[in-house]
């Protein structure tokens, strides 16, 4: 039998939970019994449904603005702009590339000096090759005089004059002696000195000696005519023809490597920055 009773707090709780279908099996059974027994419970449940529908009718308000957050609001430090960083890298690489070209192309930058040092040394002319002369002297026959060097014997080049070597006052030939005088060897050494194989007049390293010899051969006091008139030569006037050598301008490998590297970096970074910017826009 249905009796109109005042609803308790527990009844209202059961009805509220029943409305949302959040009740257990036991609670559901109890609520259904309550609804059958008490018409006030049914009425209250209907009011709850009406209120619920009424509240649900409130439209959601549109947001007055977007609530998206900025980096500063989020507390994130702004990252380095990738495009700017790439372009700066590209510019620096291009500048570096230019400097390398300048260093390599223009004279006086130090690159040529290095190249000169690395070039092969010029070959000395054969006339000054002391070792060559030494070899010549070694292969030349040694002339040994018996009983000393005859007076007036022509020694040296362009001697001329006097009696023929190895002949006596009457033109007889002096027979060779068995003993070789040390002085003769010394004079021989004068002619074919191992260390002074180059004629003294041609030895540019001993200027004082050259001057002395020159003075002797041109001395008007001694009645000697200038050497040039006697068919001799003066070492000072002697000029040797040498092959001119010009150091080749060659690039060092590390410069080429750096140039290639700078070129690649410059082009690559610029290309990446272009595509990054295009993608962002």
């Amino acid at each position, binding site marked *: 039998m249905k009796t109109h009773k005042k609803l308790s707090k527990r009844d209202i709780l059961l009805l509220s939970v029943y409305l949302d279908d959040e009740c257990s099996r036991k609670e559901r059974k109890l609520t259904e019994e309550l609804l059958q027994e008490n018409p006030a419970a049914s*009425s209250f449940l209907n*009011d709850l449904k009406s209120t619920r529908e009424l509240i649900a009718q409130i439209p959601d*308000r549109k947001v007055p603005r977007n*609530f998206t957050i900025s980096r500063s609001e989020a507390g994130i430090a702004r990252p380095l702009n990738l495009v700017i960083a790439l372009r700066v890298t590209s510019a620096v690489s291009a500048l570096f590339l230019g400097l390398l070209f300048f260093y390599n192309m223009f004279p006086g930058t130090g690159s040529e000096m290095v190249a000169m040092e690395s070039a092969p040394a010029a070959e000395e002319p054969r006339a000054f090759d002391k070792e060559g002369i030494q070899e010549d002297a070694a292969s030349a026959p040694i002339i040994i005089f018996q009983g000393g060097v005859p007076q007036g014997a022509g020694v040296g080049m362009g001697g001329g004059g006097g009696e023929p070597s190895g002949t006596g006052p009457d033109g007889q030939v002096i027979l060779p002696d068995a003993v070789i005088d040390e002085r003769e060897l010394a004079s021989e050494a004068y002619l074919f000195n191992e260390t002074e194989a180059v004629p003294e007049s041609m030895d540019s390293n001993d200027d004082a000696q050259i001057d002395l010899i020159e003075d002797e051969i041109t001395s008007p006091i001694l009645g000697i005519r200038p050497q040039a008139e006697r068919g001799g030569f003066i070492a000072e006037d002697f000029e040797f023809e040498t092959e001119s050598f010009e150091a080749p301008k060659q690039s060092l490998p590390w410069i080429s490597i750096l140039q290639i590297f700078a070129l690649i970096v410059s082009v690559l970074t610029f290309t990446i920055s272009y595509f990054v910017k295009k993608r962002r826009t």
Partner: protein
Amino acid sequence: MDENALIRLSKKDDLDAFNKLVLIYQEGVFNLALRFMGDEMLAADIAQQSFISAFQNLRSFRGGNFRAWLFRITANNCYDELRRSKRRPTQSLTMIDKESGEEMEEPIWLADETPGPEDQFTNKELEAAIQHCISALPENFRMVLVLVEIQEVSYAEAARIAKTPIGTIRSRLARARQQIQECLQGFKELLPEKYRLKSRSTP
């Protein structure tokens, strides 16, 4: 891109991904704050602050319902705002007229904006009446009612959001419904016929 992927990216400080989540949930967060606070400007500030807090604390999100997690942050911000407003000094009810410098007997700004029985029924007025009744509820009841009735959150989620046992949610909701019914009786003329309450059996 699905929600989980956006959350994963957001955890790696991808702000663009997080802002996509903001665009998805901003209406729900704003309306939760609006219905709870009853003030649009305050609600906007709370919503903004909630999203900033969410981004900064995203690493503490261990999965599950992201919407419920956002609502929990919003609810906390709402409670904080209420506490702050309670600490603020109350404004004097005496209004000085700017022109004459004299006290105004019936300041315009004190006029009751809730629709009277004579007002013509409109959706806006009904909404204002319902909002008035919601705002009249105690804080804890209000939050549960807004979550369950307006945001259609389950009891279990509401319990997690409000950090309250589910039994408490059930009782709070029942009492909130009871109180709002009583409040809405005062706006009987505004309500359409089918929404007018018939029972008078509230204890």
